[in-house]
């Protein structure tokens, strides 16, 4: 039996952030990763000889600047170039191209629409800006808030006031609206509305007309890359490149990383976690246990209901985490040609979501356990920006496709071929001939994502990112501030506030919380 100050369970990016920051505070930290390498869903893997792709997360749009700074990621090899990557809305007519950070400039629409967009974009970024600090800090602690937290919360109130009376009113009016209604108030372009609607609901079990769907867009716009709100980029080497920089930072900080080490249980004695038991029977002791894996797995599988109150088990079980996004990887023998898209813009993010109504229609079957017959998707061709990801002349395509409900009627083994066919039909419509250039393909349904990345429900965020599962209610009330009903056990993953995406914020906040409440 060996001991350390802190054990971090899970070497996803949040686990790496938490472990590094704790090690930098002078603690002896061990990080345990079940897989053969760290990174979790933020890895790069080879899906066909010579073709490599970001496993799940493929676009960097919310890596928090404090994380970049605290881990010194740029010194460890992270480059933040290409952060002004364009988004291309592939519609039925000419594509609409959003240039700069989330469409600072717009191509493909009439001047009146461009003006309307400019105003709406400014408004959305302003409002997201009010929420940004709330999505970066520890959520407010309703019982017994220290002065520093009260001041921070007051600061958010103040920034709300600074919007001015009319803007503040509109902010509050819009907060829980659906994205489709908001877009209809301002815009007329189907392709543009389709793209924004898609972005708002990407990764959640919501359609654009579902109440509160605008929150998803705010969540996205609250992210930034290299100081640019709404920015996005394809990381060099895929998302695994970001994780490599984090792993290097962790190693330098003295984190002992043990891969291939599956944690079987968290040891609890009299309401306090005292260590972990590994699948191989070994026991490791530490006063602080930080779980950077799924909260349901943490509580039900590792702690176990015997050491939890029934009420907590109920809450854990009620956290909604059924993924709705599939990931498609194609190895192509040549660069595909998306109709009407300039060669340079193929380096951008290509979105097939012809209209908000189309996105809504794509969502409808998901409510009843069926996939979208005409799925909507976000496509990138990362090998255009990083030639090392594919052989010469060939191309990698990576797409997030929805809607692909986790609990598909009949199961995914049966449904996968039909869904892949539906996806390829959509692709063929926008990039004629793409089907004949496919050398190999890999379709990860939520069921695959669940098993391959140990993400229950195959959900990116380890829990639906909707208002009832945000802030102090993430993952559930009573474990919202990174500490848990088990003394000494902390949560640090995407299942905690603020949520998923490669931000590092849950890991960073969890480490800060540990430092605040332990020596």
């Amino acid at each position, binding site marked *: 039996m060996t001991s350390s100050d802190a054990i971090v369970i899970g070497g996803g990016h949040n686990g790496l952030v938490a472990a590094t920051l704790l090690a930098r505070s002078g603690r002896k930290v061990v990080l345990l990763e079940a897989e053969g390498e760290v990174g979790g869903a933020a890895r790069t893997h080879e899906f066909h000889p010579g073709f490599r792709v970001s496993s799940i997360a493929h676009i960097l749009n919310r890596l928090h600047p404090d994380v970049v700074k605290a881990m010194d990621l740029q010194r460890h090899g992270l480059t933040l170039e290409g952060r002004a990557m364009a988004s291309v809305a592939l519609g039925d007519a000419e594509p609409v191209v959003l240039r700069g950070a989330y469409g600072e400039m717009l191509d493909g629409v009439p001047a009146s629409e461009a003006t309307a967009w400019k105003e709406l974009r400014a408004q959305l970024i302003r409002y997201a800006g009010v929420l940004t600090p709330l999505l970066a800090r520890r959520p407010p602690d309703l019982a017994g808030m220290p002065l520093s937290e009260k001041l921070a919360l007051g600061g958010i109130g103040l920034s709300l006031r600074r919007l001015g009376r009319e803007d503040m009113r509109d902010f509050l009016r819009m907060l829980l609206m659906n994205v489709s209604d908001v877009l209809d108030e301002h815009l007329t372009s189907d392709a543009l509305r389709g793209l924004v609607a898609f972005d708002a609901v990407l990764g959640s079990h919501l359609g654009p007309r579902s109440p509160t769907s605008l929150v998803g867009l705010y969540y996205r716009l609250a992210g930034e890359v290299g100081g640019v709100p709404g920015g996005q980029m394809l990381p060099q080497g895929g998302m695994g490149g970001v994780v490599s920089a984090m792993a290097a930072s962790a190693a330098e900080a003295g984190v002992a990383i043990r891969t291939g080490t599956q944690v079987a249980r968290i040891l609890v004695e*009299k309401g306090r976690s005292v260590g972990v038991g590994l699948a191989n029977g070994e026991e490791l002791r530490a006063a602080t246990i930080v779980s950077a894996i799924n909260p349901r797995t943490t509580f039900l599988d590792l702690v176990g209901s*015997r050491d939890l109150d029934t009420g907590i*088990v109920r809450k854990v079980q009620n956290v909604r985490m059924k993924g709705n996004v599939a990931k498609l990887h194609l190895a192509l023998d040549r660069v595909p040609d998306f109709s009407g898209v300039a060669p340079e813009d193929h380096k951008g993010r290509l979105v097939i979501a012809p209209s908000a109504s189309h996105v809504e229609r794509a969502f409808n079957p998901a409510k009843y356990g069926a996939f979208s017959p005409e799925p909507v998707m976000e496509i990138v061709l990362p090998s255009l920006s990083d030639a090392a990801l594919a052989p010469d002349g060939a191309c990698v395509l990576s797409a997030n496709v929805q809607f692909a409900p986790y609990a598909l009627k009949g199961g995914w083994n049966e449904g996968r071929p039909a869904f892949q066919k539906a996806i390829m039909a959509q692709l063929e419509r926008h990039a004629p001939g793409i089907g004949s250039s496919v050398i190999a393909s890999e379709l990860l349904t939520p069921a695959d994502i669940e098993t391959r990345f140990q993400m229950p429900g195959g959900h990116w965020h380890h829990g639906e990112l909707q208002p009832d599962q945000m802030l102090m209610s993430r993952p559930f009330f009573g474990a919202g501030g990174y500490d848990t009903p088990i003394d000494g056990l902390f949560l640090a993953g995407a299942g905690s506030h603020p949520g998923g995406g490669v931000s590092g914020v849950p890991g960073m906040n969890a480490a800060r919380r540990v430092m605040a409440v332990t020596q």
Partner: protein
Amino acid sequence: MTDRRKAQSHIDQLRLETPFHPRLQALAQQNDWYDWAGYKAPASLWDEELEYFAIRSQAALFDISPMVKYRIEGRDAEAYCNRLTLRDVAKLRVGRVHYTAWCDEEGHVLDDGTLFRLAGDRFRLCCQERHLPWLLDSAIGFDVEIAEETETLAGLAVQGPTAFAVLCSAGFEGIERLRPFDIADFQHAGGVVTISRTGFTGDLGYELFVDAGSALSLWDRLMDAGHQHGIRAIGYTALNRARIEAGFIVANADFITAEHAIRADRVRMPDEIGLGWMVDAEKGHFNGRRAILAARSGGTLQHVLVGLEIEGNVPAEHAIVYHRKKREVGLVTAAIWSPTAKRNVAIASLQRPHGDTVIDDLWVEIYALLELQYVKLMKRARIIERPFVKLARRGATPPGMS
């Protein structure tokens, strides 16, 4: 969800009759019924005063079938009960019963009741309220089966000084070996009746559980055998007097259970209703542990339950308790003039530190309605130990054949 609904078929009928209803109906000269947890139950049958004295001087037969009953069975049954309830179930031997309580994650009491250990891996939980969803959710992660048996299991209490004599005359051989809180199985009508030496009266007494189908024959067997020992069927009013004398509390009368409380400050922790002694912080995790220990160490317990003796002879039911006749510090939840103790007693919930460290200069304000005119009485109240009535016969083994 539908399975759970099916397991709660009692919901389909607004007012159920117990398996003993035909016998009760025949004796119900007062026709004075009340609703006990969805069952039609007698408040009194013929004379509530004499029914009370049947408990203390003869033998009283009281239908406890409406008491909610669950069977908990399986390899993890002990571990399950230990996580569910406050006391250490590992210390509860087979063939024994203990009084316990259980809490939600806030440490607020959901109910109190008795836990019967019928076998190493089989328990019966008896309580005031229905808890099937809670018990099933609590079973997640345990190898255990939970079954509702309120409707299928009939219960009868035989209480009073001649209770033992009644059971002997009824032919329950070996009943003399039962010590308080012992359980044993006996033959009845080709089946089994489970008898425990328990009760809610503070008197010598037994509780009998039998399949609903054998209920009436068991009633008749006891009534026939008890005839010479003065057995009488009684209603709740009489029993309530006896239980106050014994200092027992009743859920939703002396405290509001956590799932019933609508107002946030009405919920109670075990330490706030006199059940703090049950909390076993050493036994391992149980529901509410964290919250209860935090409230203790943080000094945030708000209330305390006390026994009071009040001067005079007017029962102080639901009277406000004052400190120095001025400051409101609590409420009397149950009160009677105790015929056996010959004292005016009450159970009250007080706001700490009153009743905890501040125990003198307490008063109750009684509004006595005398021929359409209220007489307001400010009476001195003194905190006294519960039970208010202690009877040696309750614990004597073998019991006397009075």
